[in-house]
């Protein structure tokens, strides 16, 4: 589905992503963990070219999206992204947030898009909020709507950048549950998160990043019970004891 080869990204003199290679297969649930500043977000944002890498290739559904000929807007229609701070459009209602892209990109008519949006809202139990503005919603509600806003484009893969980090603890569960449902339905997902419980129960692959490199890659069972690298052990002990 996505194949990343020798990806490099620098911000000025800071070499943030160093020769990273990675393969995500259809149906994979990849969780990326690692200390702050290790480049997790940057790697994820390279995958849909929100950050333009300096070198390396990213092959998505057979085409190199870093090449000049690639129409990145078309590619992004097939890649959903969910942000830490939701990034809902505050001047639009919930319904308009969800229908904007499919309608303005002429993928669905307004009626079709609204019908689809209502189905999605019904599924997450927020049907009643369809005409509200985002300011009236709780963080958990906002993030679930951000997720269905992405789903409305029927993406082939979903990228999540710390989707629960900005939430009050009591709202984390509702977002993780929705993500779990998506995973169960077979959605291909790449998730940057500090939610180790989610990683253990949902991921089929865990990547540990440190200083711009993926230094460990394993299934969650082995990774959490038997981390190999010192840095990974250290990170896990910190994060597990702090919970």
């Amino acid at each position: 589905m996505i194949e990343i080869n020798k990806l490099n990204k620098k911000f000025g003199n800071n070499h943030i992503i160093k020769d990273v290679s990675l393969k995500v297969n259809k149906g994979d649930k990849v969780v990326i963990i690692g200390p702050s500043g290790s480049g997790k977000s940057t790697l994820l944002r390279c995958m849909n070219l929100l950050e333009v890498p300096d070198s390396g290739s990213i092959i998505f559904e057979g085409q190199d999206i870093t090449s000049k000929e690639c129409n990145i807007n078309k590619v992004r229609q097939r890649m959903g992204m969910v942000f830490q701070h939701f990034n809902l459009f505050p001047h639009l209602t919930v319904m308009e947030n969800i229908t904007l892209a499919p309608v303005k990109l002429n993928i669905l008519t307004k009626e079709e898009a609204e019908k689809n949006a209502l189905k999605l809202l019904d599924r997450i139990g927020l049907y009643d909020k369809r005409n509200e503005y985002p300011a009236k919603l709780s963080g958990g509600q906002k993030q679930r709507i951000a997720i269905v806003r992405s789903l409305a484009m029927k993406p082939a893969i979903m990228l999540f950048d710390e989707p629960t980090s900005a939430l009050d603890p009591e709202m984390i569960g509702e977002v993780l549950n929705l993500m779990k449902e998506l995973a169960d339905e077979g959605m291909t997902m790449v998730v940057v998160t500090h939610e180790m419980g989610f990683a253990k129960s949902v991921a089929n692959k865990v990547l540990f990043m440190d200083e711009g490199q993926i230094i460990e890659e394993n299934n969650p069972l082995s990774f959490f019970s038997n981390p190999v690298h010192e840095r990974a052990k250290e990170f896990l002990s910190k994060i597990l004891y702090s919970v």
Partner: protein
Amino acid sequence: MNLNSVYEQLLINFNKTFVQEARYKLFLTGIKNTIIIAFFATVIGIVIGLFVAVIRYSAKTNKKLFVFDKICSLYVAVIRGTPVVVQLLIMYYTIFSNMDNSVFIAIITFGINSGAYVAEIARAGIESIDKGQMEAGLSLGLNRNKTMFLIILPQAIKNILPALGNEFIALLKETSVVGFVPVIDLTNAGNIVRSRTFDPFFSLYAVAVGYLVMVLGLGAVQKKLERRLSQSDRN
């Protein structure tokens, strides 16, 4: 001079200023022209200003806009660096020297002038929008232009609405120099009347009151509009 004769004199002057030769009509014409010039100039200013602001913002990520960006910054520098009266005279005596519709010339001049100020306001407005908004639009597959017009600009305009209202009000007062070319705006109407009555009192105060009423009225409208538009912020 006793109080009675002061009172009498005032009445005579009032009469001369407003009633004789139906001079109140001149004031009404002045008010009408002032409003017309300020209104259409503001509309032109907002269109130009938004256009310039979008170009200058987009030029940061799109190298092809480099030349347009330079032209825009030159425009802003020239307009902000020269007095509006000089711009008006240049328009009237050179660029539009063959045209005798002075109100039109005034609208164009003040519109172009206002555009340079609105451009700076609008640029600040666009830059105040969280960059996550652009990223969210892009990640849904919208291109930069669509994201700009559907997501960034509506929010930016809403944010700068108070500033645009202030710009309109400032412009309304600024147009009082339009009398340098033959236009009967409110100020000029007062001048014409004063030159006939030789009484500065009523004509000048009438002009001042006229501006004040317009400014206060606009301020009230502005408040109402803002309240209606803040709908989506309420929680």
